[in-house]
């Protein structure tokens, strides 16, 4: 191989991607085989606080938090149904939400980026955040979900923000949000938050 050709490089990228996904799937299979473990202290990163009967558990390894994230993260279907009219913004929005519902998150985000955020109806930031989170893009997910909290989709965006913090390993922030969710008797994600807190502890 005297000179690297584009075909050589493409083949190498293809093989690496195959290996990467193979490892990811093998990891999924291993997780399915294991029973849900309790978190155990790690000597290198222990900080145990006991306060008023509440026990704060140790910072779990980031890989364990990621595994829990994968177990609990499920994009919700879009409930905004913008009609397709002559207006290009509304059409772009309708297209974006259709792409979101089809699981085409990258395309949905690209479509939303063609619309000025001033024209976003309520709830769009929530789906934008979830789309970014589905792609593993935690920073833009956080920004969008924090915006979403300002509007009427606040309870749902709280849950996804808690999941975002879980994914980034910010367990204190994640737990704090989940405790707020559990404390709200009417919260739509109360059961899931309680189960996740239980798994974390």
């Amino acid at each position: 191989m005297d000179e690297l050709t584009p075909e050589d490089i493409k083949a190498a990228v293809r093989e690496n991607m195959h290996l990467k996904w193979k490892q990811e799937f093998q990891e999924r299979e291993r997780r399915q085989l294991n029973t849900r473990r309790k978190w155990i202290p790690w000597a290198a990163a222990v900080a145990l606080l006991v306060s008023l009967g509440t026990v704060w558990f140790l910072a779990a390894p980031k890989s364990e938090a990621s595994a829990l994230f994968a177990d609990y993260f499920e994009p919700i279907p879009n409930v905004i149904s913008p009609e397709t009219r002559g207006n290009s913004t509304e059409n772009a929005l309708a297209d974006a939400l259709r792409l979101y519902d089809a699981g085409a998150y990258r395309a949905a985000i690209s479509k939303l980026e063609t619309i000025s955020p001033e024209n976003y109806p309520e709830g769009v930031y929530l789906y934008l955040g979830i789309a970014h989170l589905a792609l593993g893009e935690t920073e833009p997910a956080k920004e969008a979900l924090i915006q979403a909290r300002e509007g009427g989709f606040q309870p749902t965006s709280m849950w996804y923000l808690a999941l975002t913090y879980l994914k980034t390993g910010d367990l204190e922030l994640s737990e704090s949000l989940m405790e707020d969710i559990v404390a709200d008797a009417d919260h739509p994600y109360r059961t899931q938050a309680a189960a996740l807190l239980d798994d974390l502890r």
Partner: protein
Amino acid sequence: MDGTEAVFESIRSGDESLIGRWYDQYRSAFLSWSKKSFPLDREQLIDIYQDAVIILYQNIAEGKITELSSSIKTYLFGIAKHLIYKELRRRNRNPTRLDEIPEIQVEAPFLAQVERQHEREQLREALQKLGSPCKQMIEYFYYYEFSLEAIAKRMRYKNADTVKAQKHRCLKKLEQLFKERTESYG
């Protein structure tokens, strides 16, 4: 744009989230079907299923499949069946006598093929060592075949010229890593 078209566009634009969803979505159905139909154990079938999902995904990403005449599930199971038959054929190649083993002629084309395979392995490993942002940029340019403008937008570079310059540096780095690996392995 219908759902399938949207999915294809998403995959071709580098969205990797769908591969995990497909994996989970069709896994149980595949295992139920394949365990009844083929003499392979569960682990072997899972291994084949993993390869089938990746192959389907990559064929869409590389534009080798541009539309579906049937469902994702049908395509996926079809690829898996092909891999299962390949595995079963491989197992059935079982010479019982030494004089039945054909003498391998070590010809130049064969040697060249082995050498090329070895070099491909070295290139693959060199690519792994590249690190950010080069690994991602190389992937976008050579695998997904994004334009320089699209890469600039995706990776937040100033413009296409900046990407071009960075890509050039990345290629030089890759060539260097590849050269080091091939020289150290002789």
